Every structure is written in C-alpha cells, then in structure tokens.
C-alpha cells in the first residue's frame, strides 16, 4: 500500500501579496459555467454578436489582409494604428467630444485601460472612489493594486453626488487617486447619470483636484430618451474609456482611451510593458468595418434587439416578481438591477434558481465591501424575449417560495429583520 501525500498548489505562499484579494470563488465559477440543458442565462453581459453579419466581417478581414498585407502581421506602434485612431476620433466627435487622433491610444478592450490606469495611479492603500455597485471587471482590475475602495451609492439618476461630496469632504483635496464612473446605463445598475449631476460631479472633481475616469461601453446603445453628453465633452481633463466590444464585437479586444497628454504618456509606458502593442490584425479589420456604412445599420438593429429584450424583461418583472421587489428601468445598455427586501440573500437564492433553470448574478460581487446581499443583476442582452419571459417567470416562482419561508421565520421572530417582511 503506497502513501501519497498530495499538496495541490505547491507554489502557494510564494505569490505576491497583491494577488491575495484577487480570488475567484470556486462556487461562482461553477455556477457561471452552468451549461445545463435549457438553462436560461440572465447572468452574462454578452453582446449578441450573431447580429453582426459574418459575411461582412469575412469581407473586411479578407480585404484588410489583401491591402494591408504584411503590416497587419507585423508589430505596430504601441498607441495603435493612426488609421484606426482617426476613425475613433470621428466616433468621438459624433458623441460631442472633439479630439485629434493623437489624443488617444488603442487598448485591448476598455478592460486593459482600467488595468493600466490602476497600474499608473494606485499604490497599496491609496483611496479610489467608485459607484456602488460597480463593474466587476473594474473591481478586479483595481483590487490587484491594493487600493482602499470607497463606493458612492446610486439612485435612478446615477451616482448620488451629494454623497460623493460628503466623501470627498472627508477625504480632503487630492484625497483619492481617481473617481471611476460608468455614466450611461451603468453596469450593473442600468441607471444613467443625469445632466445636472454630470456637471456637479465635474465641479467636485475640479474642486478636490481628483481625476475622473469615465467608462462608456454602452453609451451608443440607447433605446429611448435624448443623447447625454459624455463627461469628457464637458471637461477635457476627464479620462475616457471607449470600446468596440458593444458596437462591433468583443472578440476583437479593441478599445481606446483618451486622457490629458501627461497621463496618456504614462499609460503608454505601462502598455509597452504589458503587451508592446495591440493587435494590428484586429485593428486593420476594425478599420475596414468602420470605413463602410453597414455598421450603422447593424448597430441600429442590435439596439432595437436589445430594446425588445429590455421590454420583455420589464414586462415580465412586473407580472411575476413579488410587490416587495424593486428594479431599475434602463433606457439602454444590458442590465436591470433588482433590489429585494433586506432580509433576502440573493446568493442563497442562486442554487435554487439554477435548479429551476435560470441564472442571475448575486449583488455582492459588484461591491468591494460585502454590500448588495439583497440585490441581483439581470442581463437582458443575450436571451431572446421568450426565454427572458420564461426565465423571469421561473425566478419569480423561486422568489415567491423563498419569501414564504422568510415570512414564516420572521413571523416566529426568528429573524431580527422582521420589518418589511
């Protein structure tokens, strides 16, 4: 009989301290990977890339390789191809931001922009300010640099700037390294920062001398209401992150950043260390795609698709969710944010939902500090309207059963938060 002592990660204990807080939960991974038959996923924020015509993409890639040839296969400049930067400058002009191609760099998705900004700004223990809840990928990118994260609550008009002001007053001038915001159809909350608050946020940032990072992946996916000027259009010191993931395809990993020149220079240094330069191959393909006009009708079609899915979700939420539940009404983007009675733990709800064939993302993952226990993010971007309706019906059923159970506990005085039950 042999003796086998098995220690799995034999390198444990040798990793850098910065990786300590960047851990993915095994449970979350397994649920996220839930590939069960007829599972309805309301969890992933995946664009509907099937609406991007494959023949058009095939043609632009073929043309790009034919015409750009060797340069598509070669290393490129670390700030990105001038041709693509010119196209991005035009895209920015369309949303009210006048910049020249030299004022921006191409990144590997906006996600790389987040990582690079964290890398150049954050020392361990530095304070940064985000919305609460906020984008999980941003939390992940930032937390590797060990900041102290302060989250400012939101309501239907986005970040509550009066609470931001209170935080900044507490932190003092230059008391935070940056303020991170997703002003349009926020991930995960779905809400949009109103015009009045945009102005106030910028005033406060100027007053306390703190840079603002504006992450705008969904801005062009508006279903209703008028276009809102980006923060960058109101203040040219704002750092703006854009992406091709939602207006073309995330598979290209193409995004961009515009920032004041000195910041951009630092980011460029960090980017050279990270990957020398972005993918020329992806850039030449995107150039061809956006030089044509077809992308506009594709984007219009995509936006209409998402709008129909949002409608299906809002309608079925009203029909199937208990009266105790509240949710946001996004005017664009991918997500609805649901708030349940305080005593409900959405993490504990997930297993039952999974067994009923529907997934969502529990709220705590969107906060760095354990808040969001009674909240959940529902993505309407990826499922067809009928699937969304069925998913919400299943989820409503699970919720109703849970609420009954909670009410029984509360009625017996077994839960301290009986109020509101």
């Amino acid at each position, binding site marked *: 009989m042999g003796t086998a*002592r098995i220690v799995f990660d034999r390198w444990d204990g040798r990793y850098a301290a910065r990786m300590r807080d960047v851990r993915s939960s095994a449970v979350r991974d397994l649920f996220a990977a839930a590939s069960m038959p007829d599972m309805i996923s309301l969890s992933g924020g995946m664009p509907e890339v099937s609406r991007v015509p494959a023949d058009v993409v095939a043609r632009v890639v073929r043309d790009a390789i034919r015409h750009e040839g060797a340069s598509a296969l070669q290393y490129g400049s670390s700030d990105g191809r001038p041709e693509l930067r010119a196209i991005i400058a035009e895209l920015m002009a369309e949303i009210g931001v006048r910049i020249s191609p030299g004022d921006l760099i191409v990144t590997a998705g906006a996600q790389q922009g987040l990582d690079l900004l964290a890398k150049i700004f954050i020392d361990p223990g530095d304070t940064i300010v985000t919305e609460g809840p906020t984008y999980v990928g941003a939390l992940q990118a930032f937390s590797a640099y060990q900041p102290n994260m302060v989250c400012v609550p939101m309501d239907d008009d986005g970040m509550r700037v009066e609470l931001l002001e209170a935080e900044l007053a507490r932190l003092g001038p230059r008391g935070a390294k940056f303020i991170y915001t997703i002003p349009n159809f926020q991930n995960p909350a779905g809400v949009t920062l109103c015009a009045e608050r945009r102005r106030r946020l910028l005033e406060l940032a100027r007053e306390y001398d703190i840079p603002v990072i504006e992450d705008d992946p969904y801005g062009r996916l508006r279903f209703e209401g008028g276009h809102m000027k980006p923060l960058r259009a109101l203040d040219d010191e704002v750092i703006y992150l854009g992406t091709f993931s939602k207006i073309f395809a995330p598979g290209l990993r193409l995004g961009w950043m515009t920032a004041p020149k000195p910041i951009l220079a630092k980011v460029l240094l960090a980017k050279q260390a990270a990957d020398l330069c972005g993918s020329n191959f992806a850039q030449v393909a995107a150039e061809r795609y956006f030089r044509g006009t077809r992308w506009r009708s594709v984007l219009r079609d995509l936006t209409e698709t998402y709008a129909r899915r949002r409608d299906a979700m809002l309608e079925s939420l009203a029909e199937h969710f208990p009266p105790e539940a509240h949710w946001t009404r996004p005017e664009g983007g991918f997500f609805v944010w649901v708030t349940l009675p305080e005593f409900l733990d959405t993490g504990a709800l997930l*297993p*039952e939902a*999974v*067994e009923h064939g529907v997934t969502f993302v529990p709220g705590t993952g969107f906060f760095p500090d354990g808040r969001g226990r009674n909240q959940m993010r529902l993505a309407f971007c990826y499922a067809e309207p009928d699937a969304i309706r069925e998913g919400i019906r299943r989820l409503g059923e699970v919720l109703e059963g*849970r609420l009954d159970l909670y009410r029984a506990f509360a009625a*017996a005085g*077994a839960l301290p938060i009986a109020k509101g039950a």
Partner: protein
Amino acid sequence: MKEKIAVLMGGRSLEREVSLRSGERVCAALTAAGFHVLALDVVPDLVETLRRERPDAVYVALHGRFGEDGTVQELLEFLGIPYTGPGVVASALAWDKSLSKRLFMQHDVPTPPWVTFTADAFKEMGAATALDLVPGAVGGFPVAVKPAEQGSGLGMSRVEDAESLPEALLTALSFGDAALVERWVDGVEIAVSVLDGPEGVFVLPPVEMVAKSGIFDFSAMYTRGETEYFVPARLEPAVMAEVERLAAQVHALLGCRDVSRVDMVVGADGTPFVLECNTSPGMTDTSLLPMAAEAAGIGFQDLAVRLVRAALDRVK
C-alpha cells in the same frame, strides 16, 4: 467485439460541472482500456438515445439530484441496462442524510445528534417558533447546518450561536426541501471508500482532509491548494481498524454494491462518527475515491474498469 459503455454525466444538477469532470476522466480511462465509449449528457432525449444505442452497460458518473438519488437507477432497471454502483434503494437511502442517519442510530453506528427540518414545516406548521429547542436536542453549539439532500458540501455552514441559526437554515433550504442541524464534531475529517465485488468487501485506505479555511465545503473540495490530503489518514492503528469496520458496516447496512464512500469525523478522543455515505463518489482529479484507490495500488483506469466489469457481470 468491444463492449459498448455509455457514461452518463452532467444533467441538471448543481454538481453538473463536477460530474462533467468525473465523466470526462472516466471516458478517457475506459477508452484507453479498450471499451467503445459513449459520453451522454442527461437531457430530455436520454432514453431515446439509450434505446437506440443499446449500450452493454451504463457508467453512472452523475452527482447530485437524479443521478445519485435513485432516479436514474430506477430508469436503467426499467430499461434493462446494467449500471455501475449501488441500486435504487441504497441510492435513495444514502441520498437522504436524515433517513440514513436514522438507520445508523438503529444499528449502533455512531453519528452526531441532529434534527431535520423541512421547508414545509416552517411554512405550514410554524417550526421556526421551536428553534430555541435545537441546542438542547443536539447538545449545544457549534452545529453544522446542511441540506438533507445534496453532495459536495453545497449549502453547508458552521453555526456558533442561536442568532446565526435561522440564516444558515435559510441557506441550506435554498439547496433542497429539508435541512439538517447536526452537532459539530471537532476532529479529523476522513473519507473511507469501500469497493466490493466477487472477492468480498474491500475497504480502501482512509483519506484525511485538512481544509485551509477550516471547513471542507464545496470550494475547498474543488479548488486546488485549498485542501491538503493525507493517505492513509494519520490515525492510531486501533482507530484505523474501527473506521474501516464502520465503513464496511455502513456499506452493507444501506445495501450498497460495487462502491461507496463513507464520510466520517474522528473526534479528539479517537471516537469516529459517521456523517454520510455517497453512492456516486466523485472521480475528478481532486476526488477522494481515486486518491484512496491509488494508495491501495489501484490506478484510475483499473478502478473504472473494475466498476464497469461489475455492472457487466450482473447480466451474465
């Protein structure tokens, strides 16, 4: 002619991903051993596929509800296809932790004191008003709160005081219709695998688990580096003999065949307590049964072939 083996995996269970990992390894092993292997997910056309493909036997690599609770076993009996592992009754008994603990009690198999609550007892009968009686019934805190039916430590928590009990029950009840509150026994956690066949019952070396978080739950089980394993467990010879005897007794008591894995905790004074029995033990690369078999000189492929042979022999 090569025998055709259908490996059932996946299904709509919370342990789907674990099952897919088990199934993939089993498929590779059986293919290498020369079988004609068919990997099947448990989806609505499963029965149709089984009838069309007519496998000589089914390897049940399912974990969790439907795969481990007797449902699939009953279906395969009806279809007349031999399958690996324990039969319908043993599966159903082992799946229900409350029922199997009652059996342990009746047959003097030591198991920690516990109480069981169903969701309906709370919803329809006001059971929440009696939670104050729980500490008295199980011998005080801390307690383990877990779903009565589920594997992989899903939904389990350790509760230190009466105040945290309702929360833990609500969590456990989100994994199933009943929850167990069981006295927490501090000690060495071990898993004792049992194989049986024509030559009789054979207890494999006990595996000892030491979770870094202090609790061997789902994430400790399936996250590399989160748990250390010792094979055989570091136990006194007398205790070792006792846990081996208990494992064989539980295997027989529930009517298991081919294989089972009995999970126990050995208290500080060397007294072993049986917690539960698993009739479809994991076969992933961090699973306990393959680890124990390896220590006994039975490689993964031999183990898988042995289980398939036992099923095939049942038709002869």
